[in-house]
């Protein structure tokens, strides 16, 4: 199984490092940072959430695209925007998770392409909320990663240090 980006929401401390890292990694012209492909939200006082493209198997964005500009990269499994994009923005409207976006500074449609197999967000995530992993999680792990809540950044950091 190829690597995937896994999100463990309870570990997220809304530090926005992933956004920064993504922005820098995707910046075509130095000095003008790009819009990040990943976003973190504070859902409530206790919960943060990382919003990231799910790389759906039957992706809405792909289906609605009139010019086949969204193509899955067989190596990374991620759907990428290629140069056939004519900028109609249908994908932005179609994605139910809001993971397609338009970068009005660099005038292009953007989505997470897992940095061609080396996602900057996961690389720099200090808490392990974002992990680039190839291992398939057991049900128990998955449950734990998605459900376990923690509001204490230190405990998370500790956990990370233990690993």
């Amino acid at each position, binding site marked *: 199984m190829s690597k995937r980006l896994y999100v463990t*929401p309870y570990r997220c401390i809304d530090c926005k490092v992933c956004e920064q890292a993504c922005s820098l990694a995707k910046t075509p012209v130095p000095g003008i940072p790009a819009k990040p492909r990943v976003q973190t939200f504070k859902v409530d006082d206790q919960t943060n*959430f990382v*919003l990231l493209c799910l790389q759906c198997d039957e992706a809405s964005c792909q*289906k609605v695209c009139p010019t*086949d500009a969204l193509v899955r990269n067989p190596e990374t499994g991620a759907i990428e925007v290629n140069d056939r994009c004519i900028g109609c*923005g249908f994908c932005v409207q179609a994605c139910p998770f809001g*993971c397609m976006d338009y970068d009005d500074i660099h005038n292009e449609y953007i989505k997470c392409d897992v940095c061609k197999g080396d996602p900057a967000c996961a690389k720099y995530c200090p808490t392990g909320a974002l992990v680039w992993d190839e291992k398939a999680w057991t049900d128990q792990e998955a449950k734990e990663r998605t459900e376990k809540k923690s509001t204490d950044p230190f405990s998370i950091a500790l956990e990370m240090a233990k690993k």
Partner: protein
Amino acid sequence: MSKTKTSKTVHLTIDGQNVEAPKGAMILDVTPGLGVEIPSLCAHPGLEPFGACRLCVVEIQKPGWDDWYKQLVTSCLFQVEEGLKVWTNSDEVRQNRKVVLDLLMARVPASDVIRDLGNQYGVTKTSYAEVDTEDTCIMCDICVRACHAIGRDAIASMSRGPDKYVDVPDKDACIGCLVCANLCPTNAIPFTANDNGKRRIWGKEFDLVTDERSGEVLGTTEYIEHVRKRAEDKGLLCPEDMKHESARVKRYGYAQKLSHVADVEEPIEEVK
């Protein structure tokens, strides 16, 4: 779109570089990344090749031809072949690009894009009679093809020959998506993207829909309706949810849903 999917590859040389390219690709498609620059105004990778501007001409030689014999072809329409030799910047190529730019400069003297491109090829002033026009349309048909691609067919090229022009004969078909204006190589389609919640293009005024939470402009009412319909036709993930104003609105809803927060303050359906 017209690229045929095939695993077979062919080998050719472009300006002396050995290139391996998928069979069925056009010469223009395989040049990116080679450090070879071929100017083009009417080609767009996402649209059917058209071959109107003739700026992307290159010289080719097929295996078996006499050494002196080369042919000028448009690279956006010419498929790569095994053993093909391509010259993208020979004297003949530059000469013909120069004449084409000279002609375009006479046609659209007001266009900066053409003027800049012309300067690159040594055309500072057209040698022909300037057509007295403020307009910068060069009839590349990109807008027509793009409008066809998104499924509206609002824009059509009318008449023929030098009288050819581009128009939207059926205003109802236009959804104000601005794709045409954004793709236009010479910025010939005037529009107002957002003027107090109104958008104007092709002589039609549209109401804009704004996302209440982020304040972002989502598009015109007609545009959102078109995407919703298209999404329904394609059988997308949540055609029901597409009836809401936009996916963007749902982003926040889903964010809440996915994070398994039990105490969502407002029900998702009501998020607008």
